Structure formats: structure tokens, C-alpha cells
């Protein structure tokens, strides 16, 4: 067990967050969201990892007592990937449309007029 994956997850989360906050381009912003989401994948996989254990696939001939890494977090990560792809696709579609209507994808220039 090493602390490295947890540090990596924290780093990805924070660096993504920083770039979302300072982003000047909506496509860049969406990519930064993906970076943040990657932090959750790393975290989930790190939590379920057991050093020296095998992939959680038990076929005939593999003794169960060998042990495996936690399959639950892998299932969670897969679900998470599917969910995020949907969200990102939708967001990018919205960005394309806003480019067509407003002619800009800079969040600062999309500021509400009245303020």
C-alpha cells in the first residue's frame, strides 16, 4: 500500500478545480471537469487495490484463496465512466450551441448584462 495514488487523486481534483475556476474557454472548462472526474477514478481504484492480488476473475483452475483486488470499486468506476461520458457529451453539445448563438465561449464574456 502506498500513499501515492491518494496524492495523485487529490492533485488531479485540485488542479482540475483550479482550471475550472480560471478557465476562459468552455471547451477547456469541460476538459478540466474530466480531469476532476479522473481523480474519482484513481481514488476508487486505489481504495480497492491489494498489492500482490490478482484481477477479480475466477475461472476454472484459479483457486479462490489466491484473493483478488476489490471488484466492487471497479464496477463503481465503470459506472462512473459511463455517467461522465453522458454528461460530457451533453455539455459539449451545449457549448457548440452557445458558440452558434452568442459567438463566444468565454465564460467572462457571457456575463449577464444587467450586472
Amino acid at each position, binding site marked *: 500500500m502506498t500513499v501515492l495514488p491518494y496524492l495523485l487523486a487529490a492533485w488531479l481534483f485540485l488542479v482540475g478545480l483550479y482550471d475550472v475556476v480560471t478557465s476562459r474557454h468552455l471547451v477547456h472548462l469541460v476538459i478540466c*471537469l474530466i480531469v476532476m472526474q479522473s*481523480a474519482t477514478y484513481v481514488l476508487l481504484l486505489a481504495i480497492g487495490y491489494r498489492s500482490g492480488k490478482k484481477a477479480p476473475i475466477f475461472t476454472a483452475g484459479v483457486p479462490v484463496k489466491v484473493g483478488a483486488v476489490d471488484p466492487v470499486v471497479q464496477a463503481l468506476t465503470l459506472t462512473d465512466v459511463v455517467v461522465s461520458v453522458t454528461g460530457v457529451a451533453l*455539455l459539449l453539445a451545449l457549448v457548440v450551441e452557445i458558440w452558434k448563438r452568442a459567438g463566444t465561449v468565454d465564460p467572462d464574456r457571457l456575463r449577464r448584462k444587467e450586472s
Partner: protein
Amino acid sequence: MSSTLVPLVVAVPLLAAAALGALGNFAPSRFDNLVAIAVAVAVTVFSVLLIFRSADQTIHYWFGGWKPRSGIAIGISFSVDPLVAGVAALIGVLATAALVVSWDYFGEQVPQHFHVLMLIFLGSMTGFALSSDLFNMFVFFELMSIAAFALTGYRIEQSSALQGAINFAVVNSIGAFMLLTGIALLYGRTGALNLAQIGQVLSRGRADGLVVVAFTLVVVGFLTKAGAVPFHFWLSDAYAVAPAPVCILFAGVMSDLGLHATGRTYWEGFSGVLGADAGSVRGVLVGLGVGTALLGGAMAFVQAGLKRMLAFVVISHVGIFLAAIGLLTARGLAGATVGIVADGLVKGALFCAVASLARRLGETDELSLHGRGTPIPITGAVLGVGAVGLAVVPPLAILSGDGWLRGLLVVASALTGGAVLRAAGRIFLGLGPKQDELLVEPQAGAEAELRRAPRAGALLWLPGIALLAAGLTLAFTPGLARRAVQHAELSVDRPALARETLHGVRTPLPKPSFERSPAAYAYAGAAGLLAVGFAALGLYRRRVPVLVAAPMHRLKLLHDGVVGEYVTWLTVGTAVIGVLFAVLIAKRP
């Protein structure tokens, strides 16, 4: 068997959505709207049946029959008690109303995929409400969010709608990542995703750093969806631009689901390990709630655009019910749940009135509609009575708490009621001046709805009357609060709940022990009167004192639609809440 109804309230809308998505193009026009209404009615009927079927004991439904073995949850479960089923019924009723309104609202321009999205939204909301497994909640949370993003940006010809949807999507996605990180940490500590089992394992340990961080992240994730300050910025942008029928569901129940989940997670998951620190948790949650209630009320009062005004009403009422849940008592939880249902119906009715205004008069701006509402008096009545309801219903739902707290919440709900009452007076009675420098004018085109249809049908306002009548009836039914407290006493008894979920040991329902005190009616009456006062002040004051105008101006400037700033607030809010929990909990000897 009563339990077979449980998965149906989620499965039926999702399957119908898939079928409509695949076959909708071949069906005659309006067919998908009919199917969607039928499904929403079915969900409502199932949920109401579940309220009665679960009245004596909570129903635990384990998918695929994977029941817990020797106290370890292997499968995924839905847990249904009358409070949860009540929320599901609210979702069904509001979905029915929204779909009925959409019939006349969209008129001839039958929208593509609209009903498919609404059904997915419906199914994922009921799934989220019933789920008692944290990861399952996360999946439904995301599913409901994605349907909601798409519905917000539904009018892709308006850049304000797109921008609202993007702000909504970005802030909520980050909230969801925080939720998922919290869930991952909890799984790492407890090896469980079932809330009851997480609670069991956590209660054997101490409230250390990991517990505090995980609790903060999960709560922030849910409160982002709920729209508590300072996570609320996306909400006013999104609700102001979503089509009015969609807002019926957004305002009526989506936000409150975040609160429902916060309460459920605390009681089932954390009330054991944080039991000794309940005072700290209470302080933070009630503080957040009161702040949200007052800020939302003040911001609602300075809006001229009705949809944006109602968005801030939603924020304010989320704060009120967050304070009630944050009291961390059975009465607080029961009151909040009954209040969420009754208030959700009233807010839904108000958005029905907005849909009617938008369709009949082509606008939803209080100032430019000055005196123009006379052709649609019924809509005016719904708006006026609903405004009084906004002021009166939340105080009735606060069943306990100190006088100062209840007083502050009365002021907040009176502000929201007063704002809507002022708008109703201006639009339908032509009261007050046509100009008001205090009010934020809606962005040009931001509230533009469909093309004006002066003779649009009765389906626009009929659901509004029904929702309003139902909401006010529920709020004033005296026995309801008593029954709710009875069930809430079971919901806050974590060890008993865990024994029941994991070992199948039933706990009998406690005896009814609570009567709503006359004080609640006094607070409600005061809120109603205060709302009328605020409305008169809004219409007839001469000038605004600088002590009010200057901070309000600052506050308005914060809500500027720049997503990076919203995310900054989310980050700062999370950090402050986390540090508060950490300091308060570490200080305890």
C-alpha cells in the same frame, strides 16, 4: 404483495422512456404526451398506495432477492416508509401536473424528446428518493442531473438558456464529484455502500479526520443539488431559463430531494459516529439554513422576472427546511418532510401560473406586465393565493425550535410570499408604479417563452388550482404532522433501523406523542400578515434606505452568471464547512 410496487415506481417511467425514445417517431402526434401523463399518474397511484402499505412497517425491497446474510448487506435495497413514499407521491403528482401543463404550453409545436427526458427525470427522482444505498443514490443523482441539464437547455435557440444549463451542469457535476469522493472514502473505511451498514461500521469507531471529510463531501454534494447558500448560484440561473412546465418539477421537488438525502444520510449513516457531536452538526446546518432562507428571501424580493423570483423563493424555502432538518430531531425531520410535500405543491402551482402567464401574455416580467393580467383572473387568483401559501406553509412545518429561529424563518417565508404577492398585485390589479429601481430587470429574452397564444386552453391553469388546493389542505391537516412525527421517530433511531434493515428485526412504531401546538398557527398567521406588509412596502414605499440598497446591490452583483465564480463559491463553502466541522469536532475533549 406490497413490495412488488416498490421497483415499479422507478422501472415504469424508465421503461416507458426507453420505449417512447425508440418508437415515439412512429406514433401519432400527442401520443407521447398521453403516454407520459399515464405513466406519471401510475407513479402517483403506486406511491400513494405505498404510503398506506408502509404505514405499519417500513418496506425493505432487496433487488434480485439478495437479502443481507448475517448482517452484511450484499445486495441493493430500496427502503420505503410513509415519509419517503410521500416524497415519491409528490414527484408523481408534480410530474403529472407538469405534463398536463405542457400539453397546452407547447401547443402545436410538439417538442421532440421532451417527454422522454421528463420520464427519465421522473424515474430517476423516485429512484433517488427510495434508494438506501449510497452509490445507487449517486447514480440516480447523476441520471436526474443529466436529464435536468438537458431540460434546462431545452430552448437551444436562446443563449441564456444554454448558459443556464452550462452553469447548472458544471456546478452540479463538481458537487457530484464531491459526493462520489465522499462515498469512496466511506467505502474505503467501512467496506459498505448500504447506508445502514455504513452507519453500523462507523458507529463502532471514532469521529476522526476521514469521517469528517467524508461527511462534509457528501453533505456538500447533496446541498449543491438543494441549492443552499453558497452553492445556490446555478439554481437561479437555471430555473429562470428552463421551460415553465419543467420548473414545476425543478422547484417543487428536485431541490428538496437534496435535503431529503442530507437528512437520510445523517440519520442512517452518521448519527452514530457523530452522535456526541450532534451539537456542532446542528449549529452548522441550522446556520446554513437560516442564512440561505434570509438571503433567498431578500433576493426573491428584488426580482422583477417571475421565474427568477420563484427560483430565489425555492432557495429561501430550501434554507427553511434545511434549518428544520438541521435541528436533528424527529420533529424537525417530520416537519420538514410534510413541509417539503405541501410547499412543493404550492411552488408547483405557482409555476403553473407562470406557465399560463407566459403562454397567454408572452411575458413573465412583473413591471412590463403591470395591469395587463385582467384577461386571466384565475391565474391571478392562483398566484395571489399561492403567494400567501408561500408565507404560511413553511412556518406550519416548523414543529420545534427556539423562538428566535422560528422568528427568523417567519421573516424569510414572509419575504418570499410578499415578493410574489407584490407581483400578483402589480400584474393583476395594476397596483403600484410601473417603475422600480430596486428590482432587477430580467435579461432581455431570458424569460421569452413561446409565441403568445391569447386563447390557450384550460389545461394551463387547472393543474395549478388542483396543486394549490392539495398543498394547502396538506399543510393544514392537523393529524398529518402527528403521524409524520411518529414515523420520523423510527427514522432517527439508527440502531433500530440498522437492526431492521440488516437483520430483519422489526421495531414497533412508537405511540403518537405529538400534537401541533397553537404556536405554529400563530407563527403562520404572523408570516401571512408580514407578507402582506412586505408586498405593500414593495408597491408603495417612496425610496429605499441606503442601508438596504447598498448591500442589496452588492448581492445582486454576485449573481452574475460567470461559472468560474460560482465554482469558487462552491469551493470556499466546502472548505468553510469542512473546517467548521473539523474544528468543532476536534475541540471536543
